[in-house]
Every structure is written in structure tokens, then in C-alpha cells.
């Protein structure tokens, strides 16, 4: 096994842990953090793949994904704060008014 394979395995593991976090954490904040972990795992994969192919495209893409993450955080946190004001809670399990 070479170093790139090692890190891509690591990124896959991080991605899956992130996905698990989305499914297992109750707080919207922690779910959101887990999504960030998933994006970060993708970034790690991009960097190693860029290294493997000897290109910069992968690295440039990581830069853009970071920006996407920043934009998502701005809106996401604003949403969580807004709903906290109404419900006094960040638990997503209490948000089940809409269903069926």
C-alpha cells in the first residue's frame, strides 16, 4: 500500500463517520458538523487524487468546496438560530409536524 491509497482509505472512513453522525446525532448543530466532516473527507480525497495525477485541478476544486462549505455554514447556522428562537431547541427529532 502506498501513501495515497492510505489517505484515500482514511477519507472514506471519515466520510462514513460523517454520514453516521448525520444519522445518529439529534442536534441540528451536530448533524451539520457531521456534514462538514463529510465535505472535509471529500477534500482529503481530492488532494490525494491531485497528488496521484500530478495535477492542480484537484487542489483548485478543494478551494471551491471550502467556499461552498462556508456559504452553507452561513445559511445553515442562521436557519438553526431562527428555528431555535421558535422552538427553544436544536433537536431535529422534535421537528415532525410535517409528515405523512
Amino acid at each position, binding site marked *: 500500500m502506498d501513501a495515497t491509497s492510505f489517505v484515500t482509505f482514511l477519507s472514506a472512513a471519515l466520510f462514513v463517520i460523517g454520514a453516521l453522525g448525520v444519522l445518529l446525532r439529534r442536534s441540528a448543530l451536530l448533524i451539520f458538523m457531521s456534514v462538514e466532516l463529510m465535505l472535509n473527507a471529500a477534500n482529503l480525497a481530492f488532494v490525494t487524487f491531485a497528488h496521484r495525477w500530478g495535477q492542480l485541478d484537484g487542489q483548485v476544486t478543494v478551494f471551491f468546496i471550502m467556499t461552498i462549505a462556508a456559504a*452553507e455554514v452561513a445559511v445553515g447556522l442562521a436557519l438553526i438560530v431562527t428555528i431555535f428562537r421558535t422552538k427553544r431547541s436544536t433537536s431535529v427529532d422534535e421537528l415532525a*409536524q410535517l409528515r405523512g
Partner: protein
Amino acid sequence: MMINSTDVVAVLPFISVALGSVGLLIADLLIPAERRHVTAWLAAALLLTAAVIALSLLGSPTFEAFGGMVISDPTAFFLDTLICTIGLVTILLTLRYNQVRGILRGEFYILLALSISGMTLVTHANNLLILLLGIELLSIPLYVLCGIARPRLESEESALKYFLTGAFASGFLVYGIALTYGASGTLSLQTAPAAPNVSGDPLLLIGIGLILVGLGFKVAAVPFHLWAPDTYEGAPTTVTAFMATATKVAGFAALLRVLHGGLPGMESTWQPLVAIIAAATMIVGNLAALAQQNLKRMLAYSSIAHAGYALVGVAAHDTTSVVFYLTGYAFTTLAAFAVITAIGSSEGEEMQFLEAYSGLGRQKPLLGAVLAIAMFSLIGIPPTVGFIGKYFVFQAAVAKGLVWLAVLGVLTSAMAAYYYLRVVMVAFIREGSAAAPLPTPSAPRNLAAAISVAAVFVLGVVPALLLSMIGNGMLSTTP
């Protein structure tokens, strides 16, 4: 790198909407708060301009720009036109509805325009990064628009659910792009699988699989559809109308770019998967719609079911039929939503339950007729566009040997007649209930309804008008 005029022309609709939304942002600061509808009309003018620009570019030949990152073909410009038109009709619906509910805010239109700019980028994407950015640009304003009716809990809940599931889906999409890049060393949709020995590479296949998960979420295909009913129900109806139509179109544009425009030579790999998803989507969407008493929610499930029909065309690798289907579906759904935005009390309480529509056909025959026509088109009764659209996708499926899928499509649409007809029955056959308030008058909304209904019939009777515009599918290989 210097930008040349070809580059500009290639994404001119995107550029005009993007610049326009920045202009809108500045203009909104100058418009006094009590005259917000001016912003709305400005946004409408912007989208009309963009639609005309896109329409005028329909005749241009296929070409790539920005170093191959974007592609411009008739299908892309047609989808631009369609999306801008949907945005225009949506704005006509908002004028009265948003005012009554206190969400007639300048930001509403700025966000709407920004979202549309993202969509007009997706239609041209020839590169996975552009695809990703376009999808994020269209999604982020929508998360906010769903929650714009705060502090109404249903609006906030709809926004947060959409956001969390959307961010989750974005994670899959981004990771899928990373794996695709890892397998092929490029982000270009044209060359990714064309690299030697790559098309069977498991890394690439898993990457494509995860990209399909992300896009499946956007078009609300089963099993990535669960967010849609909740979000559609809770969001302000005008936002729901926009999401059920424009977002759906943009999501399919992305799917078409990836599956029909890119991935040459891989049709046999993805076709069975898309066919299975299409089948599941038609079945689940229609079944769940059967049990709904809430009209808005029923339309949410109906939009899932219709995504299934469009997916039949995707599976059959027939771009034209998919685009035609989506066009017909979009106008039909807008007509239905025009009626829903009309029904509600002046205090802003919405009347979503079917009960509220009883007697509508007799009290307001025209509004009732619009609702009935929309339902008939959703069932697929000629001479409405719903019929031709279904015919095209089923025909395409049969031609590709997916007979079982066409049979399933016909069967589920027969089943769908049941719940759509119930709406017509309630509107025309039941006595009006005292609780149902009369619809609030609104000339722009009536105009929106008229445009939609006219499209439903014109496209149903003379579909040739549209077919010539859509063009003959997408560029599927680099020359």
C-alpha cells in the same frame, strides 16, 4: 486567461441573470419598503429579458466555452428559456400571495434570481465542478426561501429539513465527484470515462453512483425523495410552486448533462439502474398521493411521481422526450399552484385541505376550470400536454426495449387518475362549505394561470412547436 465573446455568449443567460440579481440588490436598497412590488416587477423584467436572450440563442450551433467547462447547445438554451419563464410566472403568483402573508420582501426576489442564475449554469455544465457550483448556487437561496415565512413553524421546519437533507446529499455529490476525479484525473464530463481502461473502473462507477445519489435528491427520485413532501408542504406556496417546477427542471438538466451529455459509451451500465429508480419513483409517488387530503402535499407526491415519468425518458436515453415532459409538467403544475395561491383567507391562513376547495367550481367557475384542466393534464388526458408528454417518454422506453417500464408507467398513470379526479370532484360536485373563503382577486395571478393553461393546451395540440426548439438531444461525444 482572456474571456472572449464566445465565452460570454455561451453563458449569456446566466450572466444576465447573475448581473441582474446584483443590480436588483442595489435597486432594492433604493426602493421604499412600502413599494416592494416594484422590486418584484423589476425581477420579472429581468427574467423576461433573460428568457428572450436565451430564446434568441436557440438557433446557435453547439459549442464549448471557458476551456470546455461549459457547453452550449439548443437543449441548454431551451432549458434556460423554460427556467426563466417559470421564474417569471412564479413572480406573477407572488405579488398577491406574498403581500397577504407579509413576505413581499425585496430579498425574496433577489434570492429567486440568484437561484435561477444557478439553474441557468447547471443547464450548460460540461464539467463536474461547474455542475456542483450551479447546484449549490440554486440550492442555497432555496433553503432560505423555504424559511422566509418565519416565524411560522411549518416554514422553518420545511427549511431546516430541506437544508439538512440537502447538505447531506451535497456530501454524497461532492464525494462522488472526488472519486470520479480520482479514477479519471479530470472533471470534464466529456473525457472523464473516455480515458483508457477507465469506464469499468470501480472507483469511477462508485463515483458516478454517489453523484446519482446527489442528483436523485434534487429531482426527488425514490428513495431520495422523503424531504420533498415535508418541504413542499411547509414552504410558502409560491416557493413550493417554484421548487416543484424550476428546481425539478434544473435537477433533470444536471442528470441529463451527466448521463446523456457525458459518460459516452456507458449507457448500458446506468440504464437498468435508472429504470429501476424510475419504476420505484412512479409507484411510490402515486401510491402516497392517493392517501393525501392536503392538496399541496398531494401535489408534492404528484411531483415525485412525475419525476418518475421523466426518469423513464432518461432511462431510455431520449433527451427530447424528457425535456418535453418537463416543460409540460412545469406549466401544468404552475396552473395548479396558481389556484392554490388563490385560496386562502385574507389573514394569510392557507387553505390546503381538499375540503376548502368544495364548491370552488361553482363559485368561481374559471378558477375551478383552471384546477380541473391542470388535473386532467396531470392525469394525461388528451388534448392536454400531459398526454403527449407521457406518450413521448413511454414511446421512447418501448423503442429502447424497456417495455416493462412503459407498461408500469401506463398502469400507474391509470391509478393516478383516481386521486386527481377526486380534486375535480370536490371542486365541482360538492356543495361549497361555509368555511371556505372566496379567493382574493389578483390580476397578475390570473395572468399566470392564463399563461400556464394556454401552454397546457397549445403544447398539447401543437407539440411540434416545442420539439423543433429542444433540438435533437445533446452532444454526447467530443468531435
